[in-house]
C-alpha cells in the first residue's frame, strides 16, 4: 500500500470521529480496544487464513475485527472481498468449534453475491454433520447463500431437519424456511405437512417457529388457517406461541369477512386469555379486544379491570403497555365511560416521560367537564418538567378538549395564559396562540376574553415573531364587531417600546379600530397622528393611510366583508319564501344585519360550498343514469303512462357473474305508487338466439304486487334487450321493502333446434333507502324541524344493536338519509345519543328524522324515533319501518 493511500485512510478515520469534540471524549475513545482499527491492517492480518497451520484463536479475532469494520460502514472492493472470501473457505479446514461459529456469522455479515456459491458445499457438508451445533448453524446460514438453482438439491435435507427430534435443529430449519420463503414461496409451500407436524411440539420455541411459517405458507388460504387457529385455541401453548396465536386471531378478526361462528369462538378465546398468568399473553389479548367493535362496554369490563391493575405495577413496561391499551381503547368515544381518571392521575408524575405523557393525553380525553379545571391545574404543575415535544402533545389534547367542551373555555383560557409564562420553546407558545385563535373563531362566548388574554400576552412577550402573530390576529378581529377596546391601550404601548416591524403591525391594528369603531375615533386619531412622526417610514405611511381613510366621507355602500356576504346569503336562503310573499322592500338591510349578528361565527363559507358540491353531485348522478331521458320515455310510453311521473331511478347493478352466458342487470324506477324494474339481458353466446324472453318474479311482500310485464321477443347473439316489469305497491303506503327473486324464462334457438330453458339470477332487495335521496337542503336541522308544520310521528323500539357506534351506522344505512350537523359523532357526556337525519322522498317531499339512541341495562339498545315530513303518511311509514 502506498503512503498516500495510508494517509487518506487516516484522514477519513479522523473525519468519521467528528462527533467527539472534547478532549476527554477523545481520550475515552482512544482507550477503546478497537480504537483506530484500520481496514488495511486487518486485511493484511487476514492473510494468515491461508497458512497451512491455522491459529484458530487468532483467526477468530481477525474475523470479529472484520465484522466490526463492516458494521461501522467500511466497504471492500471487488478484489479485497474475493480474496477475503477464499480465505474464509480455507478456515473450514479447522475443526475448532469457536472458529467455526465465527465463520458462520462472517458469511451472514459478508454479503458478496458473486462468491457465495463457494461456501455452499461447505455448508451442505455441515448440515449432515454429527455435531448438532454445526447442523443448526449451517441450516441458519444456508438461506444467505442459496438461490433458486440450488434449492432443489437441498430440499431433502431441510425437510428431514424439520422433522428432526432435536428441537433446536427443527427450529433452525423452520427459521431457514421462513427466510427461503421470501426467495421462493412455492418451494416452501410443499412443506405444509412437515411444518404442521411441529405445531404441537412441546418444546418452547419450536411450536412458535412452526406456527409463523405455517401462517406464511397458508397466506393464500385463509379458510384453512382459520381452522388451524381454531384448533390451537383448545391447546395449551407456550407463552410466545400463545401470543402469536392471538396476533393471528386479531388479524383475522380485523379482516373484512369472517364467519360469525368463528368470530364467536375467537372473541370468547380472547376474553379467556386476559386471565392468563403471563403478561405477554394478557396484553396481546387486550390489544386485540380493543379493536373489536362487536363487543359491548359490559363485555369489556373485565379486560379494563385487568389492565387497570397493571397501572399500579412496579414494572415500567407493564405500566406503559397498560396505558397504551387504555389510550387505544378510548380512541373509540363510546369506550370512555369504562375508564375512571382517578386511577390514571398518579401516573402524570411518573419518572418515565413517555409514560406521563400518555397518562395526560388519556386524562384529557376522558375527563368529565366538572373536573377540567382541577385536571388542567394538575397538569400545569408538571408542565415545566416535561420535554418540549411532550408539552406540545399536551397542547394538542387541550385543543381537542376546547373542541369537545366549548363551555369550559374559562379554565382552558386560564391554562393557556399560564403556558405563556412557563419556560418553553417558541414553537410551544406559537401553538398556544393557535389554540387562542381557534377559541376566538369557534367559541363566540369566549371571544372577548380570549382576545384580551392574547393582547395581555404581548405586554411581556419576548419573541418578536410571536408578537407579530398575535398582532395579526388582533388586526383581523379589530375589523369585526365587538372587539374589546381595551386592546387599543395595550397595542398603543407597543408603539413606544418595540422595533419598527412591530410598530408597523401595531399601527395596522389601531387603524382597523379607527375604521370600525367610530366611538374611539378621536382618541385613535390622536394616537395615530403621533405615529405619523415615527422615525420609520413604513410606520409613518401606515398611520397616514389610516388617518386619511377615516377622514374620507363614508360611502353608503361600504364593501361587504365575506362574512357579511355569507350572512346575507344565509338569510336569503332561510327566508326566501317570506320575502317573496311580502310586499316589503326585498333587501331589508337591518333585518339581515341583525340576523348576521345573531349567527356570527356560525355561518361558514364551507357550508355553502358543501351545498354547492351536493347539488353538483345530484346533477351528475342524474346525468349518469340518464334520468331525464327515462322520465320522458316513461311519460310517453303507452304501456306505463298511467304510472305518472318518474320520481327516482336507482343505479344499474349486476344480477349475474361477469362470466355467465347471460348477463343481467337491473335498474329500479320509482313512481308515486309503482315501481318499474328494468332488466337488461345480454346474450353473450355466439350461435344461440333467445326467443320470448320473460321473467318469473317471486316477491316476498304482500304489499308489493306484480302488475304487468313487457318481455323481450328475441335476443340475438351478442345483443342486449330490455324486459320491463311493473309493480304496484299498496296505495296507503309510501315505503315498501322486499326481496325479489327473478327467474329468466326463454326459448333457446341453437343451430336449428329449440328448447325451453330458464335461468335464475341472484336475488336483490328493494329497500327503504331506495326511496330517499340523502340530502340536506337547509342550514340548521333544528330550525328546519320547527318550520315543518306537519304532525310529528314517533315511536320507541328496543333493538339489537350492541353499541351506539353500530346503531348509528345501521340506522343511516337503513334509511339512506343524510347525517345532519355532524350528529354521527358521539359525544360522551350525553346519556343518549341524538342522530339527525334528512332526505328527500322520491325527489319531491322533504323528510326529517330524529333518532335518540340510548342503552339500558337488561334491555340493551333503546331507540326513540321521531319523524316529520311534508306528508303525514310518509312520516308514519318512516317510523314504522323499524318494526
Amino acid at each position, binding site marked *: 500500500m502506498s503512503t498516500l493511500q495510508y494517509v487518506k485512510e487516516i484522514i477519513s478515520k479522523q473525519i468519521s*470521529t467528528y*462527533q*467527539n469534540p472534547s478532549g476527554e*471524549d477523545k481520550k*475515552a475513545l482512544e*482507550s*477503546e*480496544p*478497537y480504537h483506530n482499527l484500520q481496514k488495511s491492517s486487518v486485511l493484511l492480518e487476514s492473510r494468515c487464513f491461508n497458512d497451512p497451520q491455522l491459529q484458530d484463536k487468532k483467526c477468530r*479475532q481477525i474475523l*470479529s475485527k472484520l*465484522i*466490526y469494520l463492516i*458494521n461501522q*460502514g467500511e466497504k471492500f472492493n471487488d478484489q479485497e472481498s474475493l480474496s477475503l472470501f477464499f480465505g474464509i473457505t480455507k478456515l473450514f479446514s479447522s475443526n475448532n*468449534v*469457536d472458529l467455526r*461459529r*465465527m465463520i458462520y*456469522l462472517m458469511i451472514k455479515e459478508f454479503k458478496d453475491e458473486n462468491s457465495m456459491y463457494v461456501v455452499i458445499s461447505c455448508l451442505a457438508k455441515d448440515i449432515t454433520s454429527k455435531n*448438532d*451445533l454445526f447442523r*443448526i448453524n449451517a441450516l*441458519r446460514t444456508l438461506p444467505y447463500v442459496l438461490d433458486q438453482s440450488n434449492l432443489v438439491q437441498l430440499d431433502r435435507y431441510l425437510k428431514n431437519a424439520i422433522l428432526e427430534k*432435536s428441537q433446536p*435443529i427443527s427450529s433452525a430449519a423452520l*427459521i431457514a424456511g*421462513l*427466510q427461503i*420463503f*421470501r*426467495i421462493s*414461496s412455492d418451494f416452501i409451500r410443499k412443506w405444509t405437512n412437515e411444518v404442521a407436524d411441529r405445531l404441537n411440539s412441546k*418444546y*418452547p*420455541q419450536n411450536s412458535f*417457529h412452526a406456527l*409463523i411459517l405455517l*401462517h*406464511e405458507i397458508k397466506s393464500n388460504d385463509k379458510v384453512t388457517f382459520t381452522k388451524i387457529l381454531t384448533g390451537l385455541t383448545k391447546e395449551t401453548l407456550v*407463552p*410466545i406461541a400463545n*401470543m*402469536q396465536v392471538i*396476533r393471528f386471531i386479531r*388479524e383475522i378478526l380485523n379482516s373484512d369477512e369472517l364467519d360469525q361462528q368463528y368470530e364467536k369462538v375467537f372473541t370468547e378465546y380472547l376474553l379467556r386469555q386476559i386471565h392468563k398468568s403471563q*403478561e*405477554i399473553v394478557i*396484553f*396481546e389479548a387486550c*390489544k386485540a379486544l380493543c379493536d373489536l367493535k362487536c363487543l359491548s362496554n359490559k363485555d369489556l369490563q373485565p379486560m379494563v379491570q385487568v389492565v387497570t391493575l397493571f397501572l399500579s405495577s412496579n414494572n*415500567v*413496561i407493564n405500566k*406503559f403497555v397498560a396505558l*397504551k391499551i387504555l389510550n387505544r381503547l378510548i380512541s373509540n368515544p363510546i369506550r370512555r365511560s369504562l375508564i375512571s381518571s382517578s386511577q390514571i392521575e398518579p401516573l402524570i408524575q411518573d*419518572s*418515565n*416521560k*413517555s409514560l406521563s405523557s400518555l397518562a395526560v393525553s388519556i386524562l384529557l380525553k376522558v375527563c368529565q367537564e366538572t373536573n377540567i379545571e382541577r385536571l388542567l391545574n394538575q397538569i400545569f404543575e408538571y408542565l415545566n418538567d416535561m*420535554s418540549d415535544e411532550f408539552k406540545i402533545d399536551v397542547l394538542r389534547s387541550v385543543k381537542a378538549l376546547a373542541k369537545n367542551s366549548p363551555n369550559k373555555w374559562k379554565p382552558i383560557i386560564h391554562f393557556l395564559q399560564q403556558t405563556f409564562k412557563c419556560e418553553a420553546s417558541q414553537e410551544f407558545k406559537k401553538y398556544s396562540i393557535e389554540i387562542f385563535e381557534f377559541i376566538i373563531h369557534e367559541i363566540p362566548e369566549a371571544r372577548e376574553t380570549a382576545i384580551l388574554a392574547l393582547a395581555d400576552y404581548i405586554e411581556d412577550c419576548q419573541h418578536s415573531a410571536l408578537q407579530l402573530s398575535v398582532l395579526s390576529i388582533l388586526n383581523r378581529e379589530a375589523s369585526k364587531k365587538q372587539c374589546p377596546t381595551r386592546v387599543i391601550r395595550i397595542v398603543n404601548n407597543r408603539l413606544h417600546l418595540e422595533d419598527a416591524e412591530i410598530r408597523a403591525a401595531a399601527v395596522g391594528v389601531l387603524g382597523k379600530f379607527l375604521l370600525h369603531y367610530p366611538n374611539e375615533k378621536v382618541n385613535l386619531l390622536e394616537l395615530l397622528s403621533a405615529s405619523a412622526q415615527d422615525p420609520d417610514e413604513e410606520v409613518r405611511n401606515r398611520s397616514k393611510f389610516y388617518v386619511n381613510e377615516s377622514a374620507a366621507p363614508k360611502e353608503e355602500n361600504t364593501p361587504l366583508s365575506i362574512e357579511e356576504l355569507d350572512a346575507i346569503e344565509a338569510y336569503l336562503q332561510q327566508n326566501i319564501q317570506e320575502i317573496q310573499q311580502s310586499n316589503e322592500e326585498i333587501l331589508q338591510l337591518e333585518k339581515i344585519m341583525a340576523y348576521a349578528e345573531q349567527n356570527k361565527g356560525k355561518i361558514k363559507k364551507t357550508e355553502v360550498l358543501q351545498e354547492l358540491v351536493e347539488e353538483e353531485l345530484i346533477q351528475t348522478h342524474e346525468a349518469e343514469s340518464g334520468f331525464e331521458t327515462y322520465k320522458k320515455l316513461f311519460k310517453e310510453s303507452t304501456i306505463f303512462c298511467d304510472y305518472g311521473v318518474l320520481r327516482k331511478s336507482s343505479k344499474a347493478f349486476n344480477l349475474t357473474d361477469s362470466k355467465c352466458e347471460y348477463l343481467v342487470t337491473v335498474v329500479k324506477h320509482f313512481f308515486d305508487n309503482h315501481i318499474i324494474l328494468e332488466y337488461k339481458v345480454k346474450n353473450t353466446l355466439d350461435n344461440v338466439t333467445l326467443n320470448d324472453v320473460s321473467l318469473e318474479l317471486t316477491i316476498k311482500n304482500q304489499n308489493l304486487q306484480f302488475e304487468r310485464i313487457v318481455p323481450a321477443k328475441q335476443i340475438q347473439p351478442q345483443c342486449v334487450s330490455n324486459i320491463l316489469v311493473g309493480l304496484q305497491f299498496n296505495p296507503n303506503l309510501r315505503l315498501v321493502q322486499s326481496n325479489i327473486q327473478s327467474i329468466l324464462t326463454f326459448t333457446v334457438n341453437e343451430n336449428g333446434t329449440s328448447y325451453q330453458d330458464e335461468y335464475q339470477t341472484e336475488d336483490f332487495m328493494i329497500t327503504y333507502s331506495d326511496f330517499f335521496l340523502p340530502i340536506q337542503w337547509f342550514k340548521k336541522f333544528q330550525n328546519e324541524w320547527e318550520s315543518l308544520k306537519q304532525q310529528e310521528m314517533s315511536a320507541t323500539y328496543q333493538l339489537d344493536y350492541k353499541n351506539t357506534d353500530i346503531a348509528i351506522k345501521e340506522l343511516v344505512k337503513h334509511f339512506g338519509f343524510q347525517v345532519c350537523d355532524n350528529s354521527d359523532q358521539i359525544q360522551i357526556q350525553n346519556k343518549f345519543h341524538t342522530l339527525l337525519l334528512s332526505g328527500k322522498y322520491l325527489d319531491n317531499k322533504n323528510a326529517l328524522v330524529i333518532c335518540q339512541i340510548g342503552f339500558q341495562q337488561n334491555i340493551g339498545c333503546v331507540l326513540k324515533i321521531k319523524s316529520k315530513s311534508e306528508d303525514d303518511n310518509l312520516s308514519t311509514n318512516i317510523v314504522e319501518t323499524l318494526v
Partner: protein
Amino acid sequence: MSQLSTSLSKIFGIIFVRSQDGTRLYSKYYPQLFAKNLLRVPEGVLTNIDVQKQFEHNIWEKGKRVGARLTKGSETEIFQYCQFNIVMKAFNEVHLFVLGDFEENEIILSQVINGIYESLNHITKEHINKKTLLENFDQVIIIIDEICDQGIIITIDPAIIIARATMRDTEAINLDKHETTGSSGGAFSSVFASAKRTFAQQFMGSS
C-alpha cells in the same frame, strides 16, 4: 422477494451506542421482514448506513430524556420513537436499545433485552461496560446472532443462548457453574426458571 405478513412477532433492530456521544458500537437491523414504508424515518431511509447512525444518535438522545434516571443494568425503560417501540438499558458507558414496530408486543421486546443483558452479564462476569464489551466483541456479536435471526426470535433464555454461543450444547446449560461442561438436560429450558435464577443471583450474589 415476497413480503412476509405484518402480524409476525419480530425484532426490528438491536443497537449498542456509546453513552458519551451516541455513536455506534455495534448495530444490527433486520429490515427484510418489514414493510418498506417502515424503513422511512425523519433521518432518511434506514437501509443507508449514515442514516442508521444518525437515527441511532437521535434515539439515544430521546432515550436519555425519557429515562434519565436509568442507572442499573437490570432496569429497563420503554418509549416510542417514530414508528418504533423501543426498550432501553444503560450500562457503564453503553446504551442498549431493542426496537420493534409500533404493534410489537412490548413484553417480548423487554424479554429480548433482558436475554441480551443476562447473557452479556455472564460473559463479562457481571461487569458490563464499553471496555468489556469490546474486549469480548466476538462473543457479543455471536450472542446477538443466537437471540434472533433476521428479526425472528430464536430464544430468550440466557442459558440456551450461552450454551449455543459457546458451542457447548444445543440446550440450556447451568450458568452458575459454567466452567464445567454443561448438562444436556432440559431442567432449565424454561424461561421462567432462568429468570428466577437471575433474580436469585442479583439478590444474593455480587451487587
